[in-house]
Each structure stands twice: as structure tokens, then as C-alpha cells.
């Protein structure tokens, strides 16, 4: 019988049926970070349990690390305490830790792919909702809570119920100035922030076939913003090429067998999906959010919605959003003044994002009224960017070049908005207060749109600014 990748991976990792009807699912790869793991280690100690497969858990530190202070002890004692707790826990239990001193630290969803830990046909869990990022490689990857982190540490398994699979097909070529970020923002806008509840999203079609792995990661990353706990792209030659030679990639003798195995996990032709949605790439334009959920988005050349065009439930959220954002219905978002520009995050903090941004930034200057920071998602990305001279392009234009981490995506470190500053952000969430100020405002967009905002000082159409 023809099967989806989801079904095949699920079956390969099923340990047994649990008494409550759920599946005990083997988690081949477990990623941990400093925020959602300390309590799990505490529970483990309280129960007198050990880490069952320490070699299948990998750790890094990303959420709380300062990006402008690379020496320890950090001036933030809580950050110091949290990083030291992770050092102790990984040492006590024999877990590999990609620490700040190794040159391999970074956002957990960047470290996995960079190290070749993220592989097709695997199950990946992490106490972070953006774990779906790893689905770009054809893995079933999803976020879990801290008690579940304990479950994986203690048993390398989770109690889960299978998801339905929705195929989201995007076909055709994106117009110049339109990026993977616009694709996922558009999908969420159309299907809704809760449209994916109960589903895994399979992203497919010729647009995805043409995407690099980094572009696929940008899309899979934001599956959760559409309500889908996991999203994936079927593995292909690009996937295998990306993994080849990475530290944890299968070695030469095992390589061909690994590729054959990986390819076998791709959804079979003729398999049954629970739902299918089809989009045309040519219909997608640069997309920005205007509200307080990622689904509240418009094309840059559209007006924000008039309240009377919305249904009752959406209208209530929209009224709340307009009040928070200090924006007016039925007006253009283009031209809205920007105070801060943030380029980074597990959505758009990879080398291809920095290259594309630098390409358009080169020779231009950040508007004097804007504070702009660029935060590479990982140390390896930062090293590569410096090697290519991208850091100079950013600093000469007026961006601050920072160390690797999550930074202003969720502002658990000192990188925060102040007051009601409006931030043009390449991150993934525009929730109220998300960027560290209760009254702060976030407009989500692609990296090139962040650069356009930085230069002009307002929300701008990068296609016009850069004449693309």
C-alpha cells in the first residue's frame, strides 16, 4: 500500500501500543537547550532515573545567551546559572554539548542540520516548538513539553497519537523579491493559525523541489505558527548533498546504504492524504504581518483589512491587534515607521539569509532613526559569514554584528525592544510582548524586507527599494 513519509517514519519508530491507545514512539534524536531541560533533569533525579540513550541526545545553549558579550561570567547571573546547569547536566549524564566555547554552538535548530545529526526518516524531538524545522530533511520533528523531555531522557520514547497528513503543494516559480518566508506567511494567512491542529504538513510541489534545504527549513520552521506540530519535505538529492560530509553524517562505507534508506522514506506516488491544498507560486507576493498572530498578514502592497470584512471571531482578535500595533484598518502597512530591525532566528538566521540580505545592503546605509542588529543563528554561520566578509557589509551599513543565539526573536537575553518600538523582524512570532517589551510591536517579514526597512526607516516593498 502506498504510504506517506509520515506513516513510514511512524511505523519504523513504533515500539508498541500503550494501554490508553497511544503509540509508544521511539525518538531517534533528542535535542535539548537550557530553557526547557533543567526541570526535566530535576524530575529525572527525583525519580532516580538515568538517561537511557545519552548518545542520542544533543545539547546546545541558545535562548538566554547574550549576543554582545562573549566572555563569561555573563553580566546576567541568571543566564550564567542556566548555562552552568546545562553544563552540569550534560556532563553528569554523558550528553554531547555544543557549548559556546566549541565554535559549534547555535540555535538548536541550526546545530542539528549543521552537524549532520538531522537526517531523513528519523524522529526528532526537542523542547521547542520550532523543532519542525528539521522536517526540511524528511524527518518527523516536533516540539515537546518539559515532562516529555524527561520521558525522552528516561526512555528515548514518547506517548503520542498519530497525526493526519495534509499535503500543501506550491507549484511554479516565485517572482523576484519573493522568498520562502513569504510562502509560509502566505500559507498561514490562508489556512489560519489553527488550521493545522491535528495535522502534519507535507510541503510539496515544484516550488519546494526547487528550494534549497535552507529555504525548506524556513518554511518547515513556521509549521507550528499554522497550528501544525510538524511539517516536512520529502527527501531528495538536495537533501543528501546537504548532509554529505557533515560531522555526524554516515561515513563513506555506510553512505550508499544510508541514501537508499533515506530515499525509501519519501511519500509513495498515489498515497492517500487526509487533505490537500494547492497554491500557485505566482500568486504569492512579499508578505508582512500587521497584527499579533502570524496569520494576520497582508501582501506589502495591500491595505490592512477593514474590520467589517472580517467574521466576528477574527474581528475581535483584529481589534485587539490594531489597538496593540497602533495601526489603522483599511490603510496600507507600507510606510509604517520602523524603530528596530532584527535579522536572525531559527527561521531566517542561516548563511543564505545573511548572503541575500548583504547582497542588497552592500553600499547602502541603515536609516539614522533605526537600530539594526544581525544575529547569525550559529557560530558556524557566523564564522562562514566573516569568511565571506558579510560582517563588514553589515557593520559598514550600520547594522550591529552579534554573536550566535535566539536573541530578539523571544528576548530572553538582553536584546529587547523598548516601550512601543516597532520591529521589522525576520523571526517567527509577532505575539504581544514577544520581543521583550510589553508594548513592543513586531512586523514579521523576509530578510530582504528587513533590509529594505532598515534602509528606508519604514515598512517598505523590497522590490521597489532594490528595483528587483
Amino acid at each position, binding site marked *: 500500500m502506498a504510504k506517506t513519509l509520515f506513516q513510514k517514519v511512524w511505523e519504523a519508530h513504533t515500539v508498541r501500543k*500503550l494501554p490508553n491507545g497511544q503509540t509508544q514512539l521511539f525518538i531517534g534524536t533528542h535535542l535539548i537547550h537550557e530553557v526547557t531541560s533543567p*526541570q526535566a533533569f*530535576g524530575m529525572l533525579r527525583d525519580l532516580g532515573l538515568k538517561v537511557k540513550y545519552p548518545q542520542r541526545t544533543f545539547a546546545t545553549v541558545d535562548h538566554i545567551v547574550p549576543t554582545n558579550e562573549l566572555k563569561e561570567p555573563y553580566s546576567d547571573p*541568571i543566564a550564567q546559572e542556566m548555562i552552568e546547569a546545562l553544563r552540569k547536566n550534560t556532563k553528569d549524564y554523558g550528553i554531547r554539548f555544543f557549548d559556546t566555547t566549541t565554535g559549534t554552538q547555535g540555535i538548536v535548530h541550526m546545530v542539528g542540520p549543521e552537524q549532520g545529526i538531522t537526517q531523513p526518516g528519523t524522529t526528532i524531538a526537542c523542547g521547542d516548538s520550532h523543532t519542525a524545522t528539521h522536517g526540511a530533511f524528511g524527518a518527523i520533528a516536533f*516540539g515537546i513539553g518539559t515532562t516529555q523531555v524527561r520521558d525522552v531522557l528516561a526512555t528515548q520514547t514518547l506517548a503520542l497519537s498519530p497525526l493526519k497528513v495534509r499535503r500543501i503543494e506550491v507549484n511554479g516559480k516565485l517572482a523576484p523579491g519573493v522568498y520562502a518566508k513569504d510562502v509560509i506567511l502566505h500559507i498561514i494567512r490562508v489556512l489560519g493559525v489553527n488550521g493545522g491542529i491535528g495535522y502534519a504538513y507535507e510541503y510539496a510541489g515544484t516550488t519546494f523541489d526547487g528550494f534549497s534545504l535552507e529555504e525548506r527549513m524556513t518554511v518547515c520552521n513556521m509549521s507550528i505558527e499554522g497550528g501544525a506540530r510538524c511539517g516536512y519535505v520529502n527527501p531528495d538529492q538536495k537533501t543528501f548533498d546537504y548532509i554529505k560530509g557533515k560531522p555526524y553524517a554516515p561515513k563513506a562505507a555506510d553512505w550508499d546504504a544510508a541514501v537508499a534508506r533515506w530515499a525509501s522514506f519519501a511519500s509513495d506516488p498515489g498515497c492517500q492524504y487526509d487533505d490537500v491544498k494547492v497554491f500557485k507560486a505566482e500568486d504569492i507576493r512579499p508578505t508582512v504581518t500587521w497584527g499579533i*498572530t502570524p496569520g494576520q498578514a497582508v501582501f506589502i502592497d495591500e491595505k490592512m483589512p477593514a474590520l467589517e470584512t472580517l467574521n466576528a471571531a477574527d474581528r475581535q482578535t483584529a481589534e485587539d491587534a490594531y489597538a496593540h500595533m497602533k495601526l489603522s484598518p483599511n490603510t496600507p502597512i507600507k510606510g509604517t515607521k520602523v524603530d528596530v530591525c532584527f535579522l536572525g532566528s531559527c527561521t531566517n538566521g542561516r548563511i543564505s539569509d545573511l548572503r541575500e540580505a548583504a547582497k542588497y545592503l552592500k553600499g547602502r546605509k541603515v536609516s539614522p532613526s533605526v537600530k539594526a542588529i544581525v544575529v547569525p543563528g550559529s557560530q558556524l554561520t557566523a564564522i562562514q559569514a566573516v569568511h565571506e566578509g558579510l560582517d563588514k557589509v553589515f557593520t559598514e551599513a550600520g547594522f550591529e554584528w552579534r554573536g550566535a543565539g535566539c536573541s530578539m526573536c523571544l*528576548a530572553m537575553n538582553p536584546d529587547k525592544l523598548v516601550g512601543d518600538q516597532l520591529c521589522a523582524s525576520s523571526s517567527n512570532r509577532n*505575539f504581544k510582548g514577544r520581543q521583550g517589551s510589553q508594548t513592543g510591536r513586531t512586523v514579521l517579514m523576509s530578510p530582504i524586507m528587513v533590509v529594505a526597512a532598515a534602509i528606508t526607516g519604514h515598512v517598505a516593498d523590497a522590490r521597489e527599494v532594490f528595483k528587483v
Partner: protein
Amino acid sequence: MSLAKITQVKALALAVPGDDIDTDRIIPARFLRCVTFDGLGEHAFRDERTGPDGKERPHPMNSAQAARIAAAKKGVMVVGFNFGCGSSREHAPQSIWRFGFTALVGGSFAEIFFGNSTTLGVPCVTLSKEDLAECDAFVRANPDVEVTVDVEKLTVSAGAKTWKASIAASARDGLVNGKWDPIADLLEGADSVAKTASGLAYVAGK
């Protein structure tokens, strides 16, 4: 490990309205700067409850009703649709539970939030849109009437009203049988786990 069988939660209720209430609103990220869950209860909905000037805002969690629930350490929160969307932070249900809520009634729940709550023994049941509106209105009008979330019978009732509720079958099964924390079951399957692991080339390092 022996856990309580959670067949029913009967307690005072508080309506916390709105759809798409995300986990950043339930517990802002700055309260995640900790290595234990202790003390999270007092910060549930912190930035919704307190303005940038440090003064209390009008919010249901600041009400006398919320204070009664906090004192009783049991309560039912009536919420909207897609409650708990966003991050996987267990800090969100932990803060609600530590504040004093022991059951949630809503239109729909984000999946990770739902799973995290169930594992704490906090049932999250859903009602139809119409029933939820009625339940919400009843709770506001009758703050002294206890609401019963019956996980076994799949109903929510208050006064003379009874509404049909839903919850994932596996969550219901776990709650009513005192197996809402799956760790004991997961540990029992160790031999089967080893068998599954041995069949996975990447786990063996290939």
C-alpha cells in the same frame, strides 16, 4: 507511581476570553529564566494583568473570583479557541495550574499545550462554539456556582445546564485511570524499546 484518578473536577470557574491566546501571553519569556517551575503561578498572564506602568489592568485574572480560585487551589478556566498556541513551554500550563486551575474548558487547544496540561493532570475539554458561548455567559453571571467538568461522562455542567464535552480518547483514558503521566508505561516497555532501536540504522551510528 500511583496517580489520582481524575474523573471529575468540580470547582468555581473563571472566564478568560479571547481566541489565539498564545503561550507568551500566558507566561512571558522573561519568567522562563529559571531552572525550576516554582513560583510561576503568580506570574500567569502577568503582562495581561499588569500594565507597563506596573499598575493592575482590568483582567479576569485580577478579579476576586480569580483570588478565590487561587485560595481554593482548584478552579475551572473557560477560554476561547486555539488556546495555548505558540511555544512548547510547559511553563504555560504549569503557571495556570500553580495559580490554582485544575481544569480548562475551551473551543480548541493548541496540541503541545494540550499534551503538557494532560501530563500535569489538568483536563482540557472542548465544547461546541454555541455551548462554549453559553457556558462562558453562565460562568460570568453565576460566579458562586461551581462548574463540573466530568471527564468520564464527557460533560460540563453548572446549575441546571449540561453541555456535551470532548477530549482526545487517550487523554480521557489516562486521566480517568490515573495514568495521565505516561512515564510508568514508557518505562515498562524497555525491552520493546531496545528491539525498535536495534532496527534503526542511525541509532546504531550508521
